């Protein structure tokens, strides 16, 4: 594999043994491979492990050009072939912004994310692309969770992303603008990035924008109208239970699992929920699932085969008539109307 990393350090006193910190502030690299297996090896090491169907070697082109500042990296990636592969959930948070003509599809549990901006899922998924050119941003998952915890008052372990599509086209645009600013005006300049203060602030700005862009439990907590005041004023058991519900709403969970996650008995939890949130744990679970279904219906495209029944089933609503009635009560229209508009 041809690797030309100039790894320009912002500290140019790397030869001075007395220099306190010789770690470069920004590592810049250009990696190229003519062999699909080498491309896979690179992607496994830096993004996630892919188990693809065979890729033809003839005329294959792969390169990555990017810059990393430790907690985050921004890459341009090109992979000239078609790829369909099972992917492991990546350790880092990865946001891909496919170029205009690139088709990218990440599939998890019946949900397709196709861009123009997608967050890599936190569970196993299938990735599919044809002749891809994309911008790829990777962020340290733990450090993003700490920023989310600070913003929402949740425990950092409870800050998890619950969706892979951006919440609005405006946010998609703002993410692209932010990445252009960071790449062009910050990462490209050693003197700027050599200030640790600036590296950390840039990461916080990226992490905050990511948390505002893709659905996650920190954002749910910030936006939750049933929350009584800031998150900290609720008992820890209620906060833990709500965070568990936010994070696992897509799974088959019930009162037993929620109570176990909250570290309290089922009756105690019912009582605490009633008192602090004016609902029950299962009522809250239902509300979260309804919100997610609503979000998916708005993002869905009936011309691509998305249906109300499939989206409802994804969120555990197996009885279409009852889902329709619940939906109408909350959103004032039929789910099919949301899907069509």
């Amino acid at each position: 594999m041809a690797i030309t990393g100039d790894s320009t350090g912002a500290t140019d006193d790397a030869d001075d043994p007395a220099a306190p910190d010789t770690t470069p502030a920004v590592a810049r690299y250009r990696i190229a491979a003519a062999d699909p297996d080498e491309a896979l090896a690179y992607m496994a090491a830096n993004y996630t492990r892919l188990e693809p169907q065979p890729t033809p070697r003839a005329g294959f082109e792969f390169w990555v050009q990017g810059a990393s500042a430790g907690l985050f990296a921004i890459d341009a990636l090109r992979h000239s072939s078609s790829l369909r592969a099972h992917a492991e959930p990546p350790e880092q948070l990865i946001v891909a912004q496919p170029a205009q003509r690139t088709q990218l599809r990440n599939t998890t549990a019946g949900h397709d994310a196709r861009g123009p901006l997608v967050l890599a899922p936190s569970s196993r998924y299938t990735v599919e692309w044809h002749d891809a050119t994309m911008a790829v941003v990777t962020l340290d998952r733990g450090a993003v969770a700490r920023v989310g915890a600070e913003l929402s008052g949740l425990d950092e372990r409870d800050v998890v992303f619950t969706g892979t599509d951006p919440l609005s086209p405006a946010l998609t645009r703002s993410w692209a603008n932010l990445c252009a600013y960071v790449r062009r005006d910050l990462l490209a300049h050693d003197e700027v990035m050599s200030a640790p203060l600036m590296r950390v602030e840039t990461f916080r700005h990226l992490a905050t924008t990511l948390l505002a862009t893709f659905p996650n439990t920190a954002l749910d907590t910030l936006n939750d109208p049933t929350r009584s005041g800031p998150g900290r004023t609720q008992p820890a058991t209620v906060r833990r239970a709500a965070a568990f519900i936010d994070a696992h709403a897509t799974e088959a969970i019930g009162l037993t699992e929620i109570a176990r996650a909250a570290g309290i008995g089922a009756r105690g939890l019912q009582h605490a929920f009633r008192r602090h949130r004016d609902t029950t744990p299962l009522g809250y679970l239902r509300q979260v699932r309804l919100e997610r279904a609503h979000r998916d219906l708005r993002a869905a495209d009936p011309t691509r085969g998305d249906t109300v029944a499939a989206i409802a089933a994804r969120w555990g609503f197996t009885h279409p008539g009852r889902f329709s009635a619940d939906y109408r009560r909350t959103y004032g229209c039929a789910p099919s109307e949301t899907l069509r508009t």
Partner: protein
Amino acid sequence: MTVAYDEFATADPELAEDMIRRMYVDQRLSIHGPSAEFALGQSALAVTGRHDFAVNRLHHTLTMHLEVDPLDDLLVTDAPRRGALQVGGNTDFDAVAAGPGEVLLTAPTGRFTAQFDNVDFDITALTRHEVAEHAAARCGIAPESLRFTGLAPISPAAARLWLDTVAHVRDDILSDPEIAAIPMLLDSAYQMLATTLLVTFPNTALDATHDPLAHAPGQLSDTTVGHVVDFLHHHAAQPLGPTDIAEQAHAPARDVDDALRRRRNTTLAEQLWRARMQGAYRDLYDGDPAAGDTVAAIAARWGFTNPATFAVAYTTSTGGEAPEDTLRR
């Protein structure tokens, strides 16, 4: 947090002067310029709420001279896109000038004089107390110890960083109504701006993060250095020697001098000189020639025994105002 957008344009010099007085300064403002072909325009983006800050653009065909007392709790930067601006020195800061592509911080302390010629420039305003709190959170200094020590950016790269960051905040966040409606993004924009201000213009918070010896044993704390500087300013009218300094710092005067040089890009001698100049300025300003106050007597009170040398140094440090002028005002 909310963003208010305001646009203003006029070809009437009187309306223009009125707007400038209302929005920026209403003290000692003089405006000259051709009233034919006169034009002035401003677009302002003002954020209020958890953080207050503004990103404005102002252009006019005037020569404007202004002279104001310390800007109350504001940290303002001016970056010309066209034209030139000159900021006069005062007893705390040296005179600086900026042309297209450059940026200046307007003096946060001391009297501020400036001249703007036919400029189109970006004005950014943050509040001093919020930036001090931000510096405390990010750099571990005490909020009250934040002090800006120069009006020009620390390097051309720092100036460019400031301009790029202001453009990002203005164009990508504040100007996009859907994005500007999201409080956590406005908050993040503010923090990015505040940190960039701290890494762009020389200040005590930046020094604290740069100085690997700041917390080493035997080194003077920032509090001690700040205390000595305050002491100098309060006692500048008296003869002060190394023993007075050592007594205040509980350390040799030489160590204080080293710490000042490293962290604030200044020296004991310079601080003392500035403190005496400020004292002389205050007494001249408050003085009354009719009551018998003279330049020579006031200068001598502050340790300037040679009137000619004093007159030259004073005029340089005020950016062109002679001691007699101050006394007669």
